[in-house]
């Protein structure tokens, strides 16, 4: 058991090097996509936390929007400095989710899916309808960027996508570690229990409703944080950024990637984004992009119902067997 550990360490090191070097090999627009991708990984990973309890929401992207609008308004209207406003924005998303949990958790399964869509869409339409303070259909413009950091000898300008990518990457990795710790804790185990054995969990004294609410609030808070990362990078938010089409993308990342592992949705997000934004653009299929994307979506649920994570699991299994066999030969 102690033998493969250097291997894991090595692969983590390799991953770190790839993540650091990656933006330098890309064009400017690809660097921007990389920033969005990093933020989206947080969105889909936080979404997964909710799916652990067995509920699929269509309002998650609006929670991201609540964070973005919240942080933007706190800086613009109240003059809160940017890093603090981001935390406040994320907390706002958590609080709104807590409020929504009261009506929404009267529903389950398909009804929850539709109910969360309705709740999210109502919030989005409120942004669209009320020019003051949400800016109406055009949204909020000229949001304060993340402030430059001046060390004296070196100045980090967050307008540069590479710098913002590093910043977002650090935040996202921190959040992923927190999400992972939550899942491995008693709370996370209870989420699983709530999903697979809710009656049994309830009979052993677990407050199922409270745990569902907790999952919703945590996932919304992290989605809100992702929203603030987006808002202070692009500098403008409007209702269309958080519409059902974007939600569909999050849903498909999670389903194509698979949600039983923490890396499943991340792989789904990376592969589908790379495919949609880079591969299909490169081969010049601008208008045909949704066509190919849609076909891949259908094919992946038909032929890969357990998601990409299942493929990864099998590859790891094969590699393990290979290593194992090699060692026996050595002996």
């Amino acid at each position, binding site marked *: 058991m102690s033998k493969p550990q250097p291997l894991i360490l090595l692969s983590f090191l390799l991953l770190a090097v790839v993540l650091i070097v990656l933006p330098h090999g890309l064009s400017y627009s690809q660097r921007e996509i990389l920033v969005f991708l990093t933020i989206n990984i947080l969105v889909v990973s936080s979404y997964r936390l909710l799916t652990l309890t067995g509920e*699929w929401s269509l309002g998650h992207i609006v929670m991201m929007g609540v964070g973005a609008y919240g942080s933007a308004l706190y800086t613009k209207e109240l003059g809160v400095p940017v890093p603090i406003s981001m935390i406040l924005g994320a907390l706002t998303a958590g609080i709104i989710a807590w409020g929504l949990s009261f*009506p929404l958790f*009267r*529903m389950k399964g*398909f*009804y929850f899916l*539709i*109910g969360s*869509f*309705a*709740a999210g*869409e*109502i919030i989005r*339409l*409120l942004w*669209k*309808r009320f020019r003051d303070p949400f800016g109406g259909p055009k949204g909020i413009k000229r949001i304060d960027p993340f402030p430059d950091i001046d060390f004296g000898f070196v100045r980090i300008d967050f307008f540069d996508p590479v710098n913002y990518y590093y910043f977002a990457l650090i935040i996202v990795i921190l959040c992923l570690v927190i999400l992972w710790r939550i899942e491995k804790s008693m709370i996370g185990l209870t989420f699983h229990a709530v999903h697979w054995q809710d009656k049994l969990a309830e009979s052993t004294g677990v407050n199922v409703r409270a745990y569902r609410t907790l999952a919703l609030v945590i996932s919304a808070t992290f989605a809100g944080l992702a929203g603030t990362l987006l808002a202070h990078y692009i500098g403008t938010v409007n209702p269309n950024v958080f519409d*059902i089409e974007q939600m*569909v993308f999050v*849903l*498909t990342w999670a*389903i*194509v990637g698979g949600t039983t592992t923490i890396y499943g949705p991340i792989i789904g997000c990376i592969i589908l984004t790379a495919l949609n934004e880079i591969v299909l653009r490169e081969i010049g299929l601008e*208008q*045909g*992009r*949704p*066509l190919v*994307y*849609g*076909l*891949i*979506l*259908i094919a992946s*649920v*038909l032929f890969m*119902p357990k998601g990409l994570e299942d493929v990864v699991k099998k590859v790891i299994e094969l590699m393990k067997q290979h290593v194992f066999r090699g060692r026996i030969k050595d002996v």
Partner: protein
Amino acid sequence: MIELLLQTGLNALFAAAYLSLVAVGLVLIFGVMGVINFAHGELFMLGAYVVVALYTNLQMPFFLVVAIGLIFVGLVGIVMEMTMFHPLRDNPLGGLVASIGFLMVIQALIILGFGVRMEHVPPVTQDVIVISEKVRLPVQRLFVILSALVCLSALWLFLKRTKFGWALRASAQDPEAAMLQGISTRTVSIIALFIGAALAGVAGSVAAPVISISPVIGHSVIVSAFIVIIVGGIGSLEGAVLASATYAFIHTVITTFVDGVIADIVGLSLMLMVLIIKPTGMFGTQDRV
């Protein structure tokens, strides 16, 4: 004031007509297959583009084109059943995602074929039924209302009076018991997909001259249809029709007297309220279809 209300009522009747066609199809597919067809709005859009292609561009007679639209979109429904919903019958979430993929494919194909711009279909007739000074009903809109009446009555007769209809309702209520009775649930699901899709297609075709057509109209149609099937009680065809009328009336009145976004908010709140208070819907029972 009364005249304005009457006119709004007529407008609502028109909206209710095509909305109920779409919603009833959606309910039928859900009842039999247990899957929510996210691409249902796109089937409506496809129906409208059949009219653009054959009536506007090729000058074929309008009612022939509507019939072609019905059959063509119905066949698209069968394709969906065979390629996606049947293989994914044990995986409702997978069926949902596949239908999202299908939605993107149809939209992209239409954009590739017709472009993203709005299409204008010239009306078959410019006649207007003048009820009073301010209350008018264009005959083109009357066509939509009449065809909804015809299609829904035909569907009702089919479901209640024919053997196929009995089989369809039986397998919606209890697929296993239906199979034990010798009903081929596969044939039933193909028929349900054909009818469900064809209803959306005919709605799109017949409404094409009176609505503005673009490749993205499916979106607003499916949102309204979702509201309607929830308010009507998912699985209830009569409920879907009643809820279509209620929703169309409320939505049209608020759009006329306040504004469109508020009307959408009220519609969604109505749906949320129904979900909170009575998740089986206002007119729903335990049975499906």
